[in-house]
């Protein structure tokens, strides 16, 4: 494989095509998982922020990042940064909209106040369980439309 110079902008575009394996509507960029991108003659270096240390998808995501950049002819080193703590406030507005469409709400920063139901928009919601199908998600219930739904952990 021949390597050709690729701009940081092109690396960000490639990262926008790397989905979260459990929430495939959003990319690692939508989730606010990308801390930094650097490109030099040897290749790219991407620093990712793990949502949760124990997330079993981290290895898979790192592999997909390497593969997406290899498609662009770029060798990539992927590291997980620990100096930044991931929080739902890192999710981009686009990411929040995409998650809502698939029934996952995004609460405001470290807040246990009621989140808006992704189905009907009501705030008459409560946490049913802090533990959902993945480490980063909790299970909620909307009393207005009587629907359980998921939200990123507050």
């Amino acid at each position, binding site marked *: 494989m021949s390597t050709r110079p690729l701009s940081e902008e092109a690396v960000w575009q490639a990262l926008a095509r790397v989905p979260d394996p459990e929430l495939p509507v959003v990319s690692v960029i939508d989730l606010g998982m990308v801390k930094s991108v650097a490109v030099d003659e040897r290749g790219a270096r991407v620093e990712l922020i793990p949502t*949760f*240390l*124990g997330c079993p998808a981290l290895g898979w995501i790192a592999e997909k990042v390497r593969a997406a950049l290899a498609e662009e002819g770029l060798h990539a080193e992927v590291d997980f940064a*620990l100096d930044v*703590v991931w*929080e739902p406030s890192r999710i981009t507005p686009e990411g929040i909209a995409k998650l809502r469409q698939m029934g996952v709400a995004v609460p405001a920063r470290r807040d246990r106040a009621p989140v808006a139901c992704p189905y009907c928009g009501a705030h008459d919601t409560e946490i*049913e369980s*802090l*533990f959902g199908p993945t*480490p980063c998600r909790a299970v909620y219930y909307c009393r207005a439309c009587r629907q359980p739904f998921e939200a990123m952990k507050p």
Partner: protein
Amino acid sequence: MVARDSGMLDRGRILGDLALQLGDEELFLGHRDSEWLGLAPEIEEDVAFASMAQDEVRHAAFWYELAETAGMGQADALAFDRPATDRRHAALCARPNGDWAHTVLRHYLYDAWDAVRLMALAEAGEETVAQGARRMLREEHYHHLHMEKWVVDLGRAGGEAGQRLLKAFQALLPDLPHLAAFAVDPQALVDLGILARPLPDLRREFVARISPTLAKAGLPVHPVEAALAAQPEDRARSVAPLADAEELLSTMNGVRSLGAAAW
């Protein structure tokens, strides 16, 4: 120059020993959490304990990797191959789950102490330890909230639930001085800038943190204060009783010990 070199060695050694302690505690409690899979009283608790087990085991991996960096050995070997006699965990972390009241009260007390300890590590100057501690504080926060709710709910329910909670409290009380302690000299951790505050301060923070919750659950706090005062644990604490850790390790390593599998 010589004195300084030996100081550096001590620092690496103490960091490695601390990492082994934290790794052993998270791994053992995470294993006990995983024992509820398929058996928890409701489906949400099955999910919750699976999720917490996943968090604890990954936190353990972080500490074992740090111990590897400190020259203590390879991380997986440190996690799985050290016998009970070499473990540094608090006795409470390896205790069998018992009933639901024992499970949630044990976890609550551990999470409360862990939060106090992690804050003191996060606020100190050892950067790798502090970064890991800050991440874990966010993740452990949910365990803490979850267990706190269970303890209060069981206490307020009274009847059999209240009786079982009280029985669990009495069973766990003797383990608290060993929990609120370190497997290394706690003053050395402070002197080396790894821990922001001395052990007596952390113990006071622990009591202040659990007091309102115990009160809501109808449990007395003064036996906790008395138990801690009777055993200051101002030096490196002793090894936990071996039987619980031996049983846990033999179950945890049941498949690994077959030896023939390629991982």
